[in-house]
């Protein structure tokens, strides 16, 4: 079990303001967030609570309006486009609600997109075996079920052996059975590779998988809970 050790992320007083048309949207209003190596964190909160914004900033897809975020010795707050790209390439794996697979590439090729540019990746075949898709290598996304597509996305995210895996509503588009299979894949990766994992959900049932549950509402952290005992994915129900 991962014991809190050297923090992977230290984020302080993160603020993010979007301007949409004439309106200013405060997505984050001063959020502090730490993540330790190997930790499994669930970010819980309703739509518009700022979960995705926080995840995007941690993943180097977005930059905060104010505040600081540091990944190990990388200051992401001041990093430029090129530095953020390099950061994403070397250290972070993403899993999205809608999989975002490249439809014109097979499962193996979607994973190869990453393994071709990462420093010390596993092979696409290994990555897909980790999510129990070793027999679907040459299928195109359109030939796979939603759960399978999401597992390809997980394989694609972990193939580079990232230190952090960031998942935005990974089961949001899935029914419970397939959702459980996907969550099993995530916990399996967290346990076997020790990848620090952050999972966004508005589904409280998933919180039981986490070492720590961070609740957000209206751009603020409203509660942090530590699970003394984590539940197994297959025992989840919602």
């Amino acid at each position, binding site marked *: 079990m991962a014991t809190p050790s050297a923090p992977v992320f230290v984020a302080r007083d993160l603020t993010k303001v979007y301007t949409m048309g004439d309106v200013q949207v405060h997505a984050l209003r001063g959020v502090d967030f730490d993540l330790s190596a190997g930790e499994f964190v669930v970010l819980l909160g309703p739509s518009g609570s700022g979960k995705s*914004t926080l995840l*995007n900033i941690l*993943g180097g*897809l*977005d930059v905060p309006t104010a505040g600081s975020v540091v990944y190990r010795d990388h200051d992401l707050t001041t990093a430029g*486009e*090129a530095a953020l*790209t*390099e950061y*994403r*390439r*070397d250290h*972070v794996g*993403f899993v*999205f609600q*809608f999989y*975002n*697979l*490249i*439809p*014109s*590439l097979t499962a193996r*090729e*979607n994973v*190869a*997109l*990453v393994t*071709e*540019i*990462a420093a010390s990746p596993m092979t696409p075949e290994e990555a897909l075996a980790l999510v129990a898709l070793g027999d679907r290598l040459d299928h195109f996304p359109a030939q796979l079920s939603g759960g399978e597509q999401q597992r390809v996305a997980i394989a*694609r995210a972990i193939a*580079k052996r990232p230190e952090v895996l960031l998942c935005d509503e990974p089961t949001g588009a899935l029914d419970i059975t397939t959702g459980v299979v996907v969550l099993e894949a995530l916990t399996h990766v967290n346990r076997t590779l020790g990848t620090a994992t952050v999972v966004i959900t508005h589904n409280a049932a998933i919180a039981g998988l986490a070492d720590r549950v961070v609740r957000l509402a209206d751009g603020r952290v409203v509660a942090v809970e530590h699970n003394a005992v984590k539940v197994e994915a297959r025992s989840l129900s919602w």
Partner: protein
Amino acid sequence: MVRPRLHLRALTRKLLRDVWEMKSQALAIAVVVAAGVTMFVTYLSNFDSLVRTLSRYYERQQFADVFAGATRAPGPLAARIGAIPGVDIVDTRVVADVTLDVTGLDEPANGRLVSLPSPGAPALNRVLLRRGTWPDPARPDDVVASEVFCEAHGFGPGDRVAAIVNGRRRQLTIVGVGISPEYVYSIRPGDLFPDNRRFGVFWMQRAALAAAFDMEGGFNDVALTLAAGASSDDVVARLDRLLEPYGGRGAYTRALQVSAWTIENELTQLRMFGLVTPAIFLSVAAFILHIALTRALALQRGQIAALKALGYGNRTIGWHYVQWALVIAAAGALAGVAGGAWLGAKMADLYNEFFRFPMLDYRVSPGVALWSVLGSLAVAAAGALAAVSRAVAVPPADAMRPDAPARYRPSLIERLGVARRLPQAARMVLRTLERQPVRALLSMLGIAAAGAVLVIGLSFIDVMDVLIDEQFMQAMRQDVTVTFVGPRSADAVHAAARLPGVMAVEPQRVVPVRLRAGARHRTLAIIGLTPDASLQRVVARSGAVIPVPPAGLVLSRVLGDVLGVTPGDSVRVEVLEGARPAFDVPVAALVDDSMGVQAYMARDALHALLREGRTVSSTALKVDPRDLAQLHLTLKALPAVAGVAVREATLRNFRQTMAEHMNLIIAFNVGFAAIIAFGVVYNAARVSLSERSRELASLRVLGFTRDEVGRILLGELAVLTLLSLPVGAVIGYGLGLFIMTIFNNEVYRLPFAITAQSIAWSWLTVVGAAALSSIAVRRRLDRLDLIAVLKSRE
């Protein structure tokens, strides 16, 4: 099971599959690129091939550098000409123009007799014998005839042609068929277009020709080559001085030799055409690539975000999408090079009809092929770059979110209350167009570009009609022009009036001169016209008839440019016949005319300057058509007649030969323009379809029929197509004017013209292309998988 796999990077595989997915659109774009490249390769490879063929031909057959004619120079003068510093080889000749009576031809034809070098003498402008033999020294009437003339009449060795040689009718026997670098473009002196049935060159033995024209021991024509580094101006001046006592008609360099000059102008035009037309095509290709890619990239928004999240940088992603454009352009360019190789050979055949070489050695120039491929790639990349950089610049977090619903509002027409009761479909069409005015404008301009190219292509037909009207209906309205052997007294006019069927006679005085203004000069003939002439008149490109003033010269504007003179300036006129007087004459007017370089003057003023009576060189005749045949017969036998030009025959010949040439060019242009029209419209339709498939599928689910949904999509296209028609006509008009300005040269300056009929044809073609694309898109729309579209997240 391990399958051997071609190792391609995942992004490369994505590229190939994505392009394959949009193959019909890619094909439409590639075809437009191919059309541009085909033209580029066709024109420029022909240019290169012609240049190469000519220079080799000129060199091998010793085409002279300087030419001069005289009345009669003594033989020993040749040695003095050879002694001019800078002169390499001198070849003296006897040249004479005669009237021919050709079997099967009602009207008289014209022949030019040129002496063959005596055995052992240095020879320039060497005749290349294609068939038959050289004349037998024992048979003075043996000739080698020009190949184009023989082909026009189906003549070969053994056939005979009657000629009026110095007043005596002689039967020339064709023993050989030949070509010469001097007559690559074979045209009767003073004519505007070649007429191979009515003009032929005949090479005879010098002794026979000299005997007939009293040139024994002398010559009336000289050609020479220059030593390396010699100044042609200097040699021309010295040669003129030597020939002056012997009736020298002014030496000129190869650049002004009729055949070489015409080809040079044709080459310049070919190169211009080879650059300008493909440029238009490739711009259109870049443009539709831009539209197609912009849309494809919008559809790939989520994929771009994913690639960024995976750690792909903007450059890598940008390059990936630019490659789409490059793959399509490369395919088009390669097809274009192949097309150019094929079509270029066809065009080379056509040039072989007009210009006669030993063999036009046509091949695609590697440089041209390379440049066309590189150029298409560059143009495609330019078209793609704007679309790609915009798409790639979206921050990944933004790209992750689906596009916000587009903001719609009632269209202008609705707000104005003009069409409150518009059907729902019409309202949707209008709102869509108005919401994305730039997109709508770009699509409309793309279709307009196709219309414009069509207008340009079709305008050539109108231009030819205008040219014919101007030349044969306005400027040269005489039925027959009779040129005399040397100047004649006014009696000749009365004699001409008594010829069969002649209803009106207009005497003309044509004087060979050299016009000089400062250091610039040009050798040509001043045409003396009657000021109130109604047959041969001076007509500007605008169609305006320019009256010949009582004094002073009227010059073609190009001639004014050559000499650097404007009205009011004075030019030195050095007469190159008779007593060879020289005088200063003011330029009265410059006329913006269509053909050649011309100088006109009132006949009486010319007589006064020459201190002569009412001498005539030629007459323009108006003839009763019923007596034309009788007139032809009479003219064929008249010894004083050096040449006869018959308008009907000239016009018929022009329509046949020139029209044949032009028709091919026009067919190229129109064919390619139709391809563009289809490419653009099809692309616009496909883009709309992909953009709106979700919306259209929703409508189908709501119960709209296929027809109703089709009407919404195709209605948009119809509106854009209709809007594009006038715009295309205007752009085409502008570009046509521009192209005609570029193509102005000394040989001809085409007036730009476009008729309502051509505009209508261009519109019909565009509408037809739009209809075809609509059918193609409609079929695709009918196959749309509603459920899949609705379930997919945009």
